[in-house]
């Protein structure tokens, strides 16, 4: 079954500044980005508990859309590989009077086998 969450928030900055902040997530993401986010690239994140997890950036439309997939494993705080639910995150930026509306969706694909 696919589970999905959606969120929407208005940010007090133009889309260009929001985009820059998306590509430099260490300050707000709750994890340190060990690699730069690039189009089609992989980036590792280190979480406060010492675990690490990787994304692949698969959608890139500067100032408008960024999407990435979480890989279905992590390296936990003791260095062991563990499986994690794979999921895809899509972020869209929409200019608004107050700045930018950020639309976010994360979809898990834990139990589905694609046809």
């Amino acid at each position, binding site marked *: 079954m696919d589970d999905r*969450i959606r969120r929407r*928030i208005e940010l007090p*900055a133009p889309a260009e*500044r929001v985009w820059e*902040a998306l590509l430099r997530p260490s300050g707000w993401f*709750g994890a340190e980005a060990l690699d730069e986010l690039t189009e089609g690239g992989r980036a590792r994140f280190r979480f406060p508990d010492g675990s690490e997890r990787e994304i692949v950036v698969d959608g890139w439309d500067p100032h408008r859309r960024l999407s990435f997939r979480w890989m279905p494993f992590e390296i936990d705080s003791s260095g062991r590989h563990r499986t994690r*639910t794979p999921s895809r995150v899509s972020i869209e930026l929409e200019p608004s009077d107050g*700045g930018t509306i*950020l639309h976010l969706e994360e979809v898990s694909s834990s139990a589905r086998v694609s046809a």
Partner: protein
Amino acid sequence: MSGRDVGPIFEALADATRREVIRRIADRGETTATEIASGLEVTRQAVAKHLSALGQAGLVAGRREGREVRYHLTPGPLTEAMGWMADVGAAWDARLEALRSQLTDGS
């Protein structure tokens, strides 16, 4: 879930409509009984009763905004019981708030 009485939680989740109510709250982050009811084939009154049961089980909490009460999931028991949606929703709530703070500070 050591130290917590899980009986009321699983009883609250045993009802398929209540699980759907939880999914809708998780999907939106925060929502009202009216919004939940509009997507389901149950009355707003029925949704309000489900929300009351979920509140008593410690799974949701509401805050009054004007004439409405807006409900959100409370972490802890739901994280163990429903897992992914609560975890990921809570993570993004924190991230987006931090992002807004960062952009408000002008950094």
